[in-house]
């Protein structure tokens, strides 16, 4: 990894397969695949050591467009397939590509359990708050009241907050990025690969056909400085056109303050610690909503914990070293046997 910055094995475009990309023109997925290819190049990943596993949905066509090993599986199940891939060959860099319908509706069970186990895979969740491939039904992340083809009078259910769900499931790495910021996305994807355990990257992705501009208030050029807080570990939580607004802890609540107003100085502003075990502040950052707060972006949580595939493999190695049984013939002849002679 040391030489990565200077000598890349592959250029970003070398990771593209020969297949024609069939996402709609203007789809946010293009930005995501660009960021992934850039990140792979910077990480110096060997193409043959990468396995990309996806479910069903627009996002899940992703593996076909990458010149790595890839598996386009079935709806909701990529986390389970990816788990099998990683346990079968822990040397592989395993990436899971999924959407809000795939991972949070039909695949919700596999999703939370993969997070809970902290298996070392990177999960990029394309959250466009809509079902695109089935042409426009509401998803588990659609806002309450959303009018779609399957909710002509508006939905009467509350959406999941992806970050809170991940933390609730004992997630150790959670990042949120808009599809409009390829640079941030690339950095976050690199961090995700470096993190040992399940790394969840939620991309606020625009579906240009069925849910256009759903994240626009956050991502528009004119709003983004005020409406996004880009978190960096060890840096104060500052944002705004003049970078003079910040987040302060007031009692048990967060609040937005402005440096220079009411005696506020930079020392009043919270400094982001992604690595702290406690997820309380991480959760509060995830919960920040417009218009009162900016939306937290970047790596919100990045902590160390036991990694499932490592412990799974270590148990086997330990048993291989310590077991009295050395071959299947030993096993078959162990315990009570009896011999019949001619």
């Amino acid at each position, binding site marked *: 990894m040391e030489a990565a910055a200077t000598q890349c094995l592959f250029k970003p475009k070398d990771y593209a*397969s020969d*297949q024609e990309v069939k996402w709609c023109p203007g789809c946010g997925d293009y930005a995501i695949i660009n960021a992934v290819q850039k990140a792979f190049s910077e990480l110096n990943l*060997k*193409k*043959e*050591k*990468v*396995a990309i*596993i996806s479910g*069903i949905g627009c996002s899940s066509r992703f*593996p*076909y467009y*990458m*010149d*790595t*090993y*890839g*598996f*386009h*599986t*079935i709806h909701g*199940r990529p*986390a*389970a*397939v*990816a*788990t*099998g*891939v*990683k*346990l*079968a*060959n822990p*040397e*592989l860099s395993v990436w899971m590509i999924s959407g809000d319908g795939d991972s949070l509706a039909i695949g919700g*069970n*596999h999703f939370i*359990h993969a997070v809970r186990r902290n298996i070392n895979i990177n999960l990029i969740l394309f959250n466009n708050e809509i079902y695109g491939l089935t042409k426009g039904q509401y998803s588990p992340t659609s806002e309450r009241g959303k009018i779609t083809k399957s909710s002509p009078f508006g939905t009467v259910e509350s959406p999941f907050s992806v970050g809170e769900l991940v933390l609730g499931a004992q997630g150790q790495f959670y990042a949120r990025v808009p599809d409009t910021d390829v640079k941030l996305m690339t950095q976050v994807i690199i961090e995700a690969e470096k993190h040992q355990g399940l790394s969840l990257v939620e991309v606020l992705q625009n579906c240009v056909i069925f849910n256009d501009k759903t994240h626009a208030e956050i991502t528009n050029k004119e709003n983004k400085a005020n409406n996004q807080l880009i978190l960096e570990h060890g840096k104060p939580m500052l944002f705004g056109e003049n970078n003079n607004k910040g987040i302060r802890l007031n009692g048990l609540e967060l609040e937005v303050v402005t440096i220079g107003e009411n005696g506020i100085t930079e020392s009043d502003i919270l400094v982001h610690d992604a690595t702290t075990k406690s997820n309380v502040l991480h959760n509060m950052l995830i919960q920040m909503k417009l218009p009162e707060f900016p939306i937290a972006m970047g790596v919100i949580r990045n902590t160390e914990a036991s990694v499932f595939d490592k412990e*799974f493999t270590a148990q*086997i190695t*330990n*048993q*291989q070293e*310590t*077991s009295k*049984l*050395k*071959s*299947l*013939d030993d*096993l*078959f*002849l162990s*315990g*009570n*046997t*009896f*011999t*019949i*002679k001619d």
Partner: protein
Amino acid sequence: MDKSKTILDSVVIKFAGDSGDGMQLAGTLFTDTTAVLGNAIATFPDFPSEIRAPQGTVAGVSGFQIHFGSSGVHSPGDAPDVLVAMNPAALKANLHNLKPACIILVDIDSFGKKDIEKAGFTDNPLTDNTLSDYKVIEGPITSLTKAALADLGLDNKSADRCKNMFTLGMVFWLFSEPLEQTIQFFEQKFKKNPVIGQANILALKSGYNYALTIEAVKTSFTILPAKKASGTYRNITGNQATAWGFMAAAKKAGKPLFLGSYPITPATDIMHELTKHKWAGAKVFQAEDEIAGICSAIGAAFAGNIAITTTSGPGMALKTEAIGLAIMTELPIVIVNVQRGGPSTGLPTKTEQSDLMQAVWGRNGESPIVVISASTPADCFDWAFEATRIALEHMTPVILLTESYLGNGAEPWKIKTLSDLPQIKPLTLDAFDADWKPYKRDEAKLARKWVAPGIEGLQHRIGGLEKDAQTGNVSHNPQNHGVMVDIRKEKVARVANFIPDQKYKGKDAKKLLVVGWGGQFGILFGAVNDLQKEGKYIAFTHFNYINPLPKNTAEIFAKFDKILVCELNSGQFANYLRATLPQFKYEQFNKVQGLPFKISELKNKFNELLEEK
């Protein structure tokens, strides 16, 4: 004290009591001893699905039947020669099914007025004439057990729990069998809690001595060792044999073994067994549900492991979509269904063969799959091995059907060594090959190559979408889809070119061919064998390969006047044969009661057909 001895060919004993009475353990320990003495054995555990079903009721009775002997042991037996009834409910549950002059051993301490009423008797069956045709041995088993253990300072409950061993001691005396092996078992098992171990051993010895003292029977019975092929044997259950078969197959194929599974009765013991053997490299993943069980296996197969998933009927239903993915991506996995009574949750602890249609046809789209079945507890080893061989050498998912009756049943297994077993040759490609394409096929088998991630230059993508027959890229071309449907079908059909011919047993007896499949082999064989000995024109053929059928199947069927298909469902194999080989007429004999066949009911049916004009 000497007792006169009667030598018997074979005996059926049933241990029955409350589901907390330890009857499964008593039966298992008796089985282990008889197996080591060289008897042929077949066992049939039969228990309720509740862990501790209502005490003292017929619904809560747990039974363990063992048939052991020197010859003629093809099944766990129709009805017991000896019934151990730990309470009135256990007696009531078995009263309708006893051999004439059956010996009934009862614990009279549990025959209080309330116990008798709870079991549904109006009067005490021990004092009215209910049991007048049988030889009843009454023992105050509970109180004698407690008295025997009085000096150990155990609490009442722990002492009470040893009564199954007191009873087992009595049964050992009846059959002049030694206690050593059972004693060793308790010494091993309770190393860390020697008082409990001692209590069980003391109860066992006390029971043996009590039976000796009261001369429980005038003549005790001796069973001579069975005449078996020379070799070293061990007692094995079907689920254990299945697990070992997979381990052997992985070794013979030179690849790591991966199991993705979710607990479900009666298949879970396969997972329990495999997870003990991490020393042998077995990777066992207990998934969050049935779907994740098979999906993790599919992922592991994609990554180059020998991947299996184990389940029973309802779990099989949940795995359906993923089986389709394995068919579409042509990955080698084995799906084991230890069948139980259905539909839905059905009868979780009872046996049935009613998932055959589900296995052969139960998926969306044209989705052919190889289906094979095991026929005895011990041969689950061979069929797990064979399922793996076919999966790896033909690049196809394989469904292995066993049954609760096989999974939980036990019999002696002639131990195989790894050197006895053939090599399995997976269709792997381990280095770059410029001519390779993901869906390029072997000409004889139509199988594609198995290329796991990690090889430079062979990066490729697979998935559930239809693929171009040449390049393996996604294709929605109508003609191509037709071609691929045909290829997938033909690939499975060609497995028939690589399996042995079907055999049948019987002289050129043209009259009646009995057809069986799966776990009812022993019982069907026993029933046919009896009639063949009487000189009747009856033959028997038993199928392990279901899809595809062996190539000579029609040739065998054509030799007979009548074909009778016997199975524990409403006629699924019969209907499959009607669809596959429609030129023959198939009679059916079916039973769907969650129980195996009885030899007597089969013989009645066979005789009826033999006598028909």
